[in-house]
């Protein structure tokens, strides 16, 4: 049907209620603007705070322990991770791997031999090799071997260098420290002991511990501590994003303690994302409200033009064709409103990137594609609700 809608347009009386129409347009614009800005800010936060912790192959590695409270103090079982804890954690979608940090269950003493007159009680821990950032090929041990390779925390060396002068000990560079042969003495509860030679084969930025090969510690716990079932006091977790809100709320809920530095951004992110989600939902509500206001306007318009529309239907105009064409009248307005909101969002994003973030490379001055997608969806949504409304009202006149 190539019927022209032009002569029909004047039959729709729109003149008298322009203010309510403009209010709904402005409302729609504000709602869409809020919604789009929220989406864009949400993405900005994601991009800004996404990758702030030490990473290996795009993963974050962090250690967690149980929080020791006054109630659990002294109850070793409650402060250690059991099999179920580990299984539960490993099953979470935001965890890509879990490895327990096994500690020694016997007394260990370290001495630096004759060169540096230094000896101290200390601890050893073991961890799966693929969780350690620096694993040299000689980080192995076989039963009967008297030499133990050690991976040492860089932080510990730093601490040693801080207090060493006070005790009359030499300060050490990483290179020198690697060459020092130290002696590790393991004691059984009965006082029997065995001494091993050891040296630092690598330093780790990631792990705050003294790591020995896993099979050595298992053997030593069995031999000196007379135990095979050693529960972990710390877990190492491999995760895509240590700042993921899901991950953090899980830790909070389980009352696990985590290295605060690494998740600090995560908490900020959690709060900010919460704020912008709230703002986004508010924007959506405003959009819905505006669409409702608009539907009242449509009802009013159709009620005013009722006689004319009824006469058109009587003459043989198809109700489908009329609904399509009446609602088509508002297409340009809707598109204009959403495009204007989109343009304002773009200005906001540019200003945010340029003036607030000083053109940081993680962000873009351009809008994210999902914002464009959202505006397309909004246009479609408004047109659809509009068409449905007109159609419903027109069919009521038939």
């Amino acid at each position, binding site marked *: *049907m190539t*019927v*022209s809608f032009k*002569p*029909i347009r*004047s*039959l729709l009386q729109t003149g008298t209620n322009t203010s309510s129409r403009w209010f709904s347009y402005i409302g729609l614009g504000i709602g869409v603007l809020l919604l789009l800005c929220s989406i864009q800010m949400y993405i900005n936060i994601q991009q800004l705070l996404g990758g702030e912790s030490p990473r290996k192959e795009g993963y974050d590695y962090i250690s967690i322990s149980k929080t020791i409270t006054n109630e659990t103090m002294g109850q070793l079982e409650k402060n250690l991770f059991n099999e179920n804890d580990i299984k539960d954690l490993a099953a979470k979608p935001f965890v890509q791997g879990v490895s327990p940090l096994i500690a020694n269950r016997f007394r260990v003493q370290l001495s630096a031999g004759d060169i540096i007159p230094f000896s101290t009680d200390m601890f050893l821990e073991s961890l799966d090799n693929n969780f350690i950032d620096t694993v040299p090929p000689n980080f192995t041990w076989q039963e009967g071997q008297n030499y133990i390779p050690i991976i040492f925390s860089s932080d510990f060396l730093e601490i040693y260098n801080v207090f060493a002068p006070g005790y009359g000990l030499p300060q050490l560079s990483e290179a020198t420290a690697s060459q020092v042969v130290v002696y590790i003495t393991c004691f059984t509860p009965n006082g029997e002991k065995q001494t091993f030679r050891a040296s630092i084969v690598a330093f780790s930025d990631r792990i705050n511990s003294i790591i020995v090969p896993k099979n050595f510690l298992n053997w030593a716990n069995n031999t000196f501590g007379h135990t095979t079932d050693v529960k972990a006091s710390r877990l190492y977790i491999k995760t895509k994003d240590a700042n993921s809100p899901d991950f953090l709320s899980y830790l909070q809920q389980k009352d696990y303690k985590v290295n605060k530095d690494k998740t600090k951004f995560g908490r900020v992110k959690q709060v900010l994302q919460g704020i912008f989600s709230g703002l986004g939902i508010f924007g959506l509500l405003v959009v819905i409200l505006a669409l409702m206001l608009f539907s009242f306007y449509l009802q009013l318009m159709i009620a005013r033009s009722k006689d*004319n529309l009824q*006469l*058109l*239907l*009587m*003459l*043989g*105009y*198809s*109700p*489908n*064709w009329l609904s399509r064409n009446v609602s088509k009248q508002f297409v340009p307005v809707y598109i204009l409103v959403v495009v204007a909101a989109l343009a304002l969002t773009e200005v906001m994003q540019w200003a945010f990137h340029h003036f607030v973030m000083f053109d940081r490379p993680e962000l873009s001055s351009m809008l994210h594609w999902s914002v464009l997608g959202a505006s397309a969806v909004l246009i479609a949504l408004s047109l659809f609700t509009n068409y449905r409304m007109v159609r419903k009202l027109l*069919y009521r006149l*038939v």
Partner: protein
Amino acid sequence: MQLQLQQVLPVYFESDHRTASEVWRHDLTFTKGEYVKIVAPSGSGKTSLMHFLYGLRSEYNGNILYNSGSLKSFSPEDFAGYRKDHISIVLQDLRLFPEQTVWENIELKRQLNPFHPAEKIREMAERLGIGNKLSSKCRICSYGEQQRVAIIRALMQPYDFLLLDEPFSHLDDKNSQNAMQLMLEESKLRNAAIIFADLERIDYFPFTRLFHL
């Protein structure tokens, strides 16, 4: 192309109409090319019958069939097609857009399914004596002029049946004959039937069948 009435009676009629009427509660079939005259005194349901046939109302018992399809089962979209392509009407209350000009009123019908080119509007208007009114708003035309607008509007589309409900109530004899002549010519062009309902017999309508409502 048939228009059938099967035992049709308005729901709001008393049952004594059954005996008096030659239309109500009867089975009738109208076919293309016929000229049907329905003589109906006031209150006999003339306008109701026209509205039923055109599908404006459906408060009747019985059935009206167009080409064996019951009007009662028509969807709004079906009625649009029915009125656009198959049936045309001149209503007693005319139903024109008061704020549109004469020409616009006719064109609104013509563009829907043009049987004639737009120039034909002027030609017919001249012939019925309202050529000078084409650009006047219908609101300010006399009732007689509006009646002629409604007649011309009804002739702009293709149709199988032309329904006339007291089309000449405000026209003098000369104008009535003139309009009747035009409608007969147009109906002949389409080989269409005319169903003409009026209060009394009109001599210049060459009916082939006559019913008393």
